[in-house]
């Protein structure tokens, strides 16, 4: 008997503007000790399935058909209280949004201990010990101290690992992992995958892994399901599906996986669209709104951004008595510069300070030491809004966590229109609408998305909203913190191509943070590698990939998952 059996599941989100059918009849079986991968288009309904299995569909979503069985027992119609015994203990769930999944007011330790003690008969001390063990298992250094920190003191990848630890700490029989490794560098990713594999083999746990990362699928799953628009279009042994895909969608998906071995100029696109082959519109940037050059371009020719000896120290433990306080140096004396029109990549260990650097450049954090020059002006010393304003619009940032960077009470339209209206980048109301809709088209969301609120979107869709917003200012310098981590390869290609076009034709400069080494290789001109708050190496991309100098870089490249399937398109 299968451990988990999903039969004919249908889910819809009714709303006044029409009902979204997110899942349209899905059958999926997972056996103990088996890892099933789910891949598919962003917004295909993958996360929704996961939510439905543990009975936590968000209102107004509801299951309109089908059954979910655990050990042959139907669970989708169980009362709330009974489900509470299954959740966590029987089925562990890792949500896609690790950053908003942690309660901001409790320390990581408190949340772990509570979960452990809810399900396992342990004393406070034992539970704490277990919590620390779990943190170590997911690769968090200095777990002893980290336990007592609050989620906001963790980096994106670290929070993701905490979420994983939370889901696994009660030893569930079944694990549903929704994009568990999007924010993790390859070495940590490998560690997490090992952990999952170990659970699976040793304790006979069943696992569903939802991911966009074909590398992960290839590496760990036994079987894989390919989803497209709410349906499973292909299901089979991993090697079979990846090696000899049958459904045209799967085929085009495989074709779009970025290559890690050679550098191409553009990312290949998925050309399948609902049974027909879609013609991709190519935008002519020069005549497009995005391309309308902004009046002022500076005559300076030096690097656009120059960072000198940047240091950021956080207070990691706060205390009334100053000498009891503990500090943590997240970024340690970092210097680099970014040339005009260049895409500057940053890779590195999770928690190594990449986002912190990005935020300092964006002006969101005040560095403890060091100076940032933008266009030869020391922006980090500017204080008043008046002085800062000219730079604000030129520097834009795509946040690592798209969901929390969207105002939950604003419609997507207003989110994207805000910078346009604010900087008067459009002549009329009609034009604003037109630009917004156009931007939405370019990130493949469609016009209808404009009238929805952020919570009505899937993880990848939210990320695209935040990309559209960043583009709406027509920035000169764009900071991308994991811009495509939640995107399927097809949309990833679309967006990265767009960014590349902007760079090539308009000279847009970018700071590009990513864990995805193939993407880095395709996108970036130069790359910096960070570890423990320091830059280990800066080099031309090709040089770095072909002849890494630093041992850490070498290890990273080594661990890069490779797809050893022949891709037949």
């Amino acid at each position, binding site marked *: 008997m299968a451990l988990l059996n999903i039969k004919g599941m249908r889910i819809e989100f009714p709303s006044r503007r029409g009902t979204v059918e997110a899942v349209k009849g899905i059958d999926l079986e997972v056996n103990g000790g088996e890892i099933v991968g789910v891949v598919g288009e962003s917004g295909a309904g993958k996360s929704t399935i996961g939510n439905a299995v543990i009975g936590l569909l968000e209102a107004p979503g509801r299951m309109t058909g089908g059954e979910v069985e655990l050990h042959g027992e139907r669970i989708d119609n169980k009362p709330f209280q009974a489900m509470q015994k299954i959740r966590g203990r029987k089925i562990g769930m890792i949500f896609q949004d690790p950053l908003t999944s942690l309660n901001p007011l409790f320390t990581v330790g408190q949340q772990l201990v509570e979960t452990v003690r809810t399900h396992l008969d342990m004393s406070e001390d034992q539970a704490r010990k277990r919590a620390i063990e779990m943190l170590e298992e997911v690769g968090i250094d200095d777990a002893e101290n980290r336990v007592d920190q609050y989620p906001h003191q963790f980096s994106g990848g670290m929070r993701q690992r905490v979420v994983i630890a939370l889901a696994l700490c009660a030893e569930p029989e079944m694990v549903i992992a929704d994009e568990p490794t999007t924010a993790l560098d390859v070495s940590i990713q490998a560690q997490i995958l090992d952990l999952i594999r170990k659970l699976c083999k040793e304790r006979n746990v069943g696992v569903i892994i939802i991911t966009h990362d074909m590398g992960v699928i290839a590496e760990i799953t036994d079987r894989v399901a390919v989803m497209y628009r709410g349906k499973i279009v292909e299901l089979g042994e991993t090697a079979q599906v990846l090696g000899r895909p049958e459904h045209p969608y799967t085929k085009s998906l495989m074709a779009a996986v970025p290559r890690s071995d050679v550098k191409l100029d553009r990312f290949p696109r998925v050309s399948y669209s609902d049974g027909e082959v879609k013609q991709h519109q190519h935008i002519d940037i020069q005549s497009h709104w995005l391309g309308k050059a902004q009046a002022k371009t500076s005559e300076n020719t030096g690097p656009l951004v120059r960072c000198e000896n940047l240091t950021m120290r956080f207070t990691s433990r706060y205390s009334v008595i100053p000498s009891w306080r503990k500090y943590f140096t997240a970024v340690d004396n970092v210097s680099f510069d970014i040339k005009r029109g260049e895409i500057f990549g940053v890779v590195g260990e999770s928690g190594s300070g990449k986002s912190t650097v990005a935020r300092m450049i964006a002006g969101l954090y005040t560095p403890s030491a060091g100076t940032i020059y933008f266009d030869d002006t020391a922006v980090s010393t500017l204080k008043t*809004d008046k002085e800062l304003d000219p730079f604000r619009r030129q520097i834009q940032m795509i946040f690592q966590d798209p969901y929390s960077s969207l*105002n*939950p009470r604003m419609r997507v339209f207003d989110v994207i229109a805000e*910078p346009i*209206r*604010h900087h008067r980048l459009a002549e*009329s109301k009609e034009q604003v609408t037109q630009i917004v809709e156009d931007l939405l088209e370019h990130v493949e969301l469609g016009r209808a998305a404009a009238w929805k609120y952020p919570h009505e979107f899937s993880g990848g869709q939210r990320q695209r909203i*935040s990309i559209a917003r960043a583009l709406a200012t027509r920035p000169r310098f764009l900071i991308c913190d994991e811009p495509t981590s939640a995107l399927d390869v097809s949309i990833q290609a679309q967006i990265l191509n767009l960014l590349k076009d902007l760079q090539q034709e308009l000279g847009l400069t970018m700071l590009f943070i990513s864990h995805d080494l193939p993407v880095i290789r395709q996108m970036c001109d130069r790359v910096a590698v960070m570890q423990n708050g320091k830059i280990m190496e800066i080099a031309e991309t090709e040089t770095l990939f072909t002849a890494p100098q630093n041992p850490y870089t070498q290890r990273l490249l080594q661990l890069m998952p490779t797809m050893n399937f022949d891709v037949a398109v």
Partner: protein
Amino acid sequence: MSGAMTNKGDKPVARFGDGVKRALDSDIFHSFLKSPVTIVASIVTLVMILASVFAPLVAPHDPFDVATLNLLDSELPPFWEADGDARYLLGTDNLGRDVFSPILYGSRVSLLVGFTSVVLSMVLGIALGLVAGYKGGLIDAFIMRVAEIQLSFPTILVALLINGIMRGLLPPAQHAELTILVLVLSIGLSNWVQFARTVRASTLVERNKEYVLAARLIGVKPFFVMLRHVLPNVMGPILVIATLGLAGAVLTEATLSFLGVGVPPTEPSLGTLINVGSDYLFSGAWWITIFPGAALAILVLAVNLVGDWLRDALNPKLR
């Protein structure tokens, strides 16, 4: 909400018809239609407002016309009781005034004072609270200390102060018209701190959230960040305080009037009616206080129901 916001950059091309169409099509309006309780509550509120505005047309008696008062008619019970008089639907008070008509007229003063003073304290409190919470530092300290000074003075004293100043500034002839203004100002000024501190507290939490950072990055001016991003997200508690504050304001008005800084006793307000009537509660003439009390309770209930709905409707996740 945000959709209705205008920007200086937009040309004022919106036609009235468009606005109406848009409003009728908005999510808020639809969630309104879906909530029968809210519809009833807003109809009740509306009826009460209209009845008080058009009191001279609706009311069977004119409580301002003292000449019609007859002590002989005092303390008649409502018409359905044995000694009731059909002329006085809800009976008469200790001075022979009809109980029903002053409720209509009285709601005028009460609604006017209640709503405007709540709006005043809300606007003031929200503005100061947002600035204090968002800017922090010295500005915050200054605003909060002013708040503490304000807190130390009960409404009664504020009213006396404003009353005194107004009387000093203006010729005696205008004093009568001032009473409402004095009431609104003193109640409004006494209550802004609640809003300010609540807004500030929530703003402290919100201001470091990423969506606020994102807005700042776009280059949105602090004023608009506060208005469009922070404010909608701290609105929940504010609506609670505001809707409950309405009842408080109406009742405070009564106390102030009794203390001689409000409307004169010949000019009824809901609060004064309840106040005066409560003396007669146990002498058997319960109707003098119960009916105005019920009117106030219904109003407060209706406004709170609308407020509850509005708060939910403003949160897209709750619709």
